[in-house]
């Protein structure tokens, strides 16, 4: 009964708090949210007068400020997985060619604002990778057709009516050309390297043919593989790289010749002067990189400058540059996708951009450690001090605490970050595709530390999603032990597993990078901390061997062998397999298969478990008749989505709820004539998923909720093996009038606060939708505010006020991460993609905190005012009474005097 009443109270309480308008106030903008924008890994660059135009692998065209590196404008072209920018040419306007295979789009843009000036499609029949170049206001499209010929199509670029644009096609026979041929465009020449012959073709001459020179005659006979690299220059020239030594080959009047000096393969040259710039490693530990300029004709060193190269960045290459008089600016990019602008001759780095952050793969939120001051209280019982010193110790620390409180906050003292009262200040550790770890401060959005792991790449998991794992072994709660986190990824060359242990607050690692000798299939954090309060984790290799980290925590795991279960999703066989650790021994961990679900011929698209740190506060739902309907809260439940190609229904989306211990399929639903993208959100006793309904051509979202019924079978311990009855399942579907990209649900400390779904849409908005709006309604039961139930609406209303990122449009969102704050009402949200956006949401409003527009001044003023008024009126009243008394006394009117005395007495009594 008590249980029931508490549930009821909470429900009513929260119903009062819900008003479906949960928008921000305009003055809250930027108070606790921040946004960082990125462009991605740069492919092509052009340095202009005051700006740098970049084209990136994210299929983005952007203009960066020369002075600060800030983005001036940014245009996102089509999906980078399908299309890529293949040509960037900046003249009076910017020209880009982007696309893939046989569909290309030629666009011109205004330099100052990034407005589109013109766009025309360039389609060919040949579905082959091709090259583009611009020469004398003409666009050359070069397609090498294997073992046959090279097609060169010339399009006029300007002064042409868009509809009448016709290319002039020319075919040049080239029977030697292969798929593997290396070809580059250097100035007006098309140069290919094939079986030790160098072929070159003058594109400008209408009737020119390929000419060839054997490589041996240029470089001397060598067995080493030769690589062809183009060099940006007025005279057509290329670099021939053998054994990491480059030779410069130039074509003058249809004759190719090699210069007698050696260069680095990273050598570049700009139009403005006759210098070749190259980067060399330096022995000086403070200045690791040296820039060397060589003369183009003689190869003699002109000058060399040591750079103030920041530590922690990967190896750089020069992408572009600009020389005005003596001043040269070099635009560098690094192996970890950072961008740098170098100012020569000083060798100063003007700015750095960490573009690795444009592709975050894994994130984790960390609470900060307590301050030294707070921690010193813990020292009270250290050693064998007597009671007086303990007492004085406590008093002094508490006085210090009071002092620091009065002197205004302690969240950032001495540059060390410490925990705040409400857990609003956190550190976000992110792992990026480039293999670089960053720690971001939630308050400012600044990078606290970064760490580059060389040769690291993410795993490819179900549905070809890239994944890295960040496992939290120990949080910062256990002073004086530092927090510990682990990154699991794979080696980019061998594909074998990589384990990296580090302290998430400082970024320091004691063990460094551990490279494993097996591939990682699955890894799981175990909830059994060892004596150092470190949670061990299991790694399953591709041969189904199990490895425990750290190894000495086997004694903790040993007791739990028979109750530890694992599942592995196999996207190749479209199956889900369950394993038990039951038959393991201390010496060898062993997986025993105990169940299997086989979805073939359907394709396994997504598997979603519940958030591990989720707490279900309320065990039931109160119905209209005040009875409790208990939730089916199974922590082992997995949600699985499959897509089946079907001849009758085109494609069928099926969603399953599977118990992860027994493999029992508790629920399955299939949507015919539906297709992906499917997003699953699995929390408490419900599942929400979205799919595209092909019949009605609209996005739909379905909610599934599981209940045990009016009786709770076992309120203390849940066991997947004890199946007394199958859960009662309620479902309902809705129309979602938007295209979702990612979806997640808010998470709070105790789970009391209402749940809100956060949905990232293709239009760059992240909206919040209350779960109450989706919660399936019970048929035949009243639905109204008293039942905390919103009447069914088939189309979910999306208001612009529910956009948590207001007008800060976010591009190519690849994930939304949530973490609870210590304040029950509040949840941290990080949205990442090409932009990073952090904010805090309070689904039931900040009910545990005074409103931030609470007027402290007014209340103090009113209080002080009323106190002052009390005293003043008291005085005035006394004076008045005295005056009146005297007045009456002078009149000597006895009756009146008595009367007045009476009044005074009453006044005093009052």
């Amino acid at each position, binding site marked *: 009964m008590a249980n029931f009443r508490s549930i009821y109270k909470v429900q009513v309480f929260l119903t009062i708090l819900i008003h479906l*308008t949960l*928008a*921000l*106030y*305009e*003055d809250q*903008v930027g108070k606790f949210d921040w946004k960082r924008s990125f462009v991605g890994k740069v492919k092509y660059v052009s340095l202009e007068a005051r700006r740098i135009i970049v084209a990136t692998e994210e299929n983005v065209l952007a203009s960066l400020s020369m002075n600060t590196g800030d983005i001036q*404008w940014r*245009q*996102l*072209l*089509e*999906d980078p997985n399908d299309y890529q920018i293949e040509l960037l040419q900046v003249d009076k306007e910017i020209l880009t060619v982007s696309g893939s295979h046989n*569909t290309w*789009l030629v*666009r011109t843009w*205004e330099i100052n*604002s*990034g*407005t*589109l*000036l*013109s*766009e*025309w*499609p360039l*389609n060919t029949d040949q579905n082959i990778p091709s090259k583009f170049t611009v020469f004398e206001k003409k666009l050359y499209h070069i397609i090498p057709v294997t073992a046959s010929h090279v097609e060169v199509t010339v399009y006029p670029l300007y002064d042409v009516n868009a*509809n009448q644009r016709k290319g002039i096609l020319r075919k040049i026979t080239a029977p030697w050309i292969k798929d593997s041929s290396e070809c580059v465009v250097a100035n007006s020449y098309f140069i290919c390297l094939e079986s030790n012959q160098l072929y070159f073709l003058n594109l400008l001459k209408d009737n020119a043919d390929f000419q060839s020179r054997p490589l041996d005659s240029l470089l001397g006979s060598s067995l080493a593989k030769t690589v062809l690299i183009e060099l940006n220059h007025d005279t057509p020239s290329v670099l021939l790289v053998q054994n990491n030594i480059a030779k410069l080959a130039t074509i003058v009047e249809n004759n190719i010749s090699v210069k007698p000096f050696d260069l680095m393969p990273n050598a570049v040259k700009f139009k403005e002067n006759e210098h070749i710039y190259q980067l060399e490693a330096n022995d000086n530990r403070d200045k690791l990189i040296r820039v060397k300029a060589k003369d183009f004709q003689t190869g003699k060193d002109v000058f060399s400058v040591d750079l103030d190269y920041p530590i922690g960045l990967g190896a750089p290459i020069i992408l572009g540059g600009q020389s005005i008089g003596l001043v040269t600016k070099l635009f560098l990019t690094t192996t970890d996708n950072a961008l740098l602008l170098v100012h020569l001759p000083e060798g100063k780095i003007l700015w750095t951009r960490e573009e690795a952050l444009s592709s975050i793969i894994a994130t984790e939120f960390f609470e900060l450690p307590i301050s030294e001051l707070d921690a010193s209280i813990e020292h009270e019982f250290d050693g064998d001090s007597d009671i007086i010193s303990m007492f004085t110790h406590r008093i002094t620390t508490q006085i210090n605490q009071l002092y620091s409180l009065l002197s205004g906050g302690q969240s950032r003292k001495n540059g060390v970050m410490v925990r705040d009262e409400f857990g609003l200040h956190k550190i976000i550790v992110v792992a990026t595709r480039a293999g670089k770890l960053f720690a971001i401060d939630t308050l400012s959005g600044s990078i606290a530390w970064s760490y580059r792991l060389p040769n690291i790449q993410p795993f490819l998991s179900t549905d070809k999603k890239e994944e890295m794992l960040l496992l939290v072994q120990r949080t910062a709660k256990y002073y004086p032990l530092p927090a510990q986190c682990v990154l699991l990824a794979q080696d980019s060359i061998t594909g074998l597993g990589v384990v990296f242990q580090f302290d998430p607050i400082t970024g320091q690692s004691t063990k460094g990078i551990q490279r494993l000798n097996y591939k990682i299939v699955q890894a799981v954090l175990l909830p059994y901390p060892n004596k150092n309060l470190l949670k061990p984790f299991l790694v399953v290799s591709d041969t189904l061997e199990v490895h425990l980290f750290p190894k000495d925590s086997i004694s903790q795991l040993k007791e739990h062998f028979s109750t530890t279960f694992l599942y592995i999703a196999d996207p190749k066989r479209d199956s889900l397999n369950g394993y038990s650790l039951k038959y393991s021994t201390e010496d060898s961990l062993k997986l025993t298969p105990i169940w299997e679900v086989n979805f073939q011929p359907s394709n396994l698209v997504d598997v979603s478990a519940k958030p591990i740190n989720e707490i279900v506060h309320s065990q039931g739902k109160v119905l209209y008749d005040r009875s409790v309907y208990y939730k089916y809260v199974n922590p082992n439940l997995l949600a699985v989505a499959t897509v089946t190609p079907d001849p009758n229904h085109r494609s069928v989306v099926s969603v399953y709820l599977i118990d992860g211990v027994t493999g029992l399929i508790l629920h399955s639903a299939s949507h015919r004539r539906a297709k992906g993208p499917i997003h699953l959100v699995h929390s408490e006793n419900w599942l929400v998923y979205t799919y595209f309904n092909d019949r*009605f*051509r*609209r996005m739909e979202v379905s909610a599934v909720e599981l209940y045990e019924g009016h009786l709770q079978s076992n309120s203390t311990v849940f066991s997947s093996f004890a199946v007394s009855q199958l859960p009662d399942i309620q479902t309902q579907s809705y*129309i979602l*009038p938007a*295209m979702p990209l990612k979806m997640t649900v808010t998470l709070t400390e105790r789970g009391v606060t209402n749940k809100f779904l956060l949905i990232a*849409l*293709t*239009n*760059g908005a992240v909206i919040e939708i209350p779960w109450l709006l989706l919660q399936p309604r019970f048929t035949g039961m009243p639905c109204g505010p008293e039942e905390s139930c919103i009447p069914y609406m*088939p*189309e979910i209303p999306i208001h*612009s*006020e529910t*956009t948590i990122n*207001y*007008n*800060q*449009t976010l591009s190519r969102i690849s994930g939304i991460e949530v973490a609870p704050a210590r304040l029950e009402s509040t949840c941290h949200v990080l949205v990442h993609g090409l932009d990073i956006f952090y904010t805090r949401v309070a689904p039931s409003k900040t009910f545990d905190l005074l409103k931030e*527009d609470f*007027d402290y001044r*007014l209340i103090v003023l009113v209080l002080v005012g009323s106190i002052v008024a009390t005293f003043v009126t008291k005085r005035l009243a006394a004076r008045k009474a005295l005056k009146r008394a005297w007045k009456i006394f002078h009149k000597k009117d006895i009756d009146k005097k008595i009367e007045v005395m009476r009044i005074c007495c009453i006044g005093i009594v009052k």
Partner: protein
Amino acid sequence: MNFYLKLFLSLAFFLSVHADISVEEEYGSGRYVIEGRVFPLSDYQTGNLNNWQATTRVHVNGGEFIGFVKKDGSFAIHNIPSGSYVIEVLHSEYTFEPVRVEINSKGKFRARKVNNIQTSLINQVPYPLKIKALGKTRYFQIREQWRATDLLFNPMIMMMLLPVLLIMVLPRLMNDPETKKDLEQIQKMTKFEVPQVSEVVSNFLASNTVQSPAKDSNKKGQKPRKRPVTKE
């Protein structure tokens, strides 16, 4: 029957001719261009956004194809195969209504309003598209501002202030000897004629309180009644 067939044929022919006129097919690859024009709100409202073209994008099916807006507000999205598409114009400050464009296999275009609930309902709009901004997007709640008039006209405050005024001002008036005289005169004149409302009420109450215990004691034996007893 024959007649109908002929009619049908000629109709189809007409349609295909019509389609040829309205469609710009590219290189015979069965790919089409969706064209249209974006109209922002009138100039005085867009004055601070003189560069709205660069920040406006056109999404087809949520970004499957992308169009950019030129200086004159027009857009053209190339390489689109036949099918049904939702065209959305995106701008962070303005809201635009999405439009569904259907291109059949012959290349005939039809544009209509997006209706997710009644998908078969056709509400045709002209093609090439003319997309007008519905209005400025409201992202923020308006904070309730503190205004003195709000406070003053609050019934509670009025209730408080009026008595205060009466208490403060009336005695002042009394103190003035001339008005006092006037008042006294008026009071003398009206003293016995009209009994004051308050007096009547207080007399009534007083008599009630005095009488009620007596009444109660009288009725005690007959009817025990619950009543708050006023204490003197």
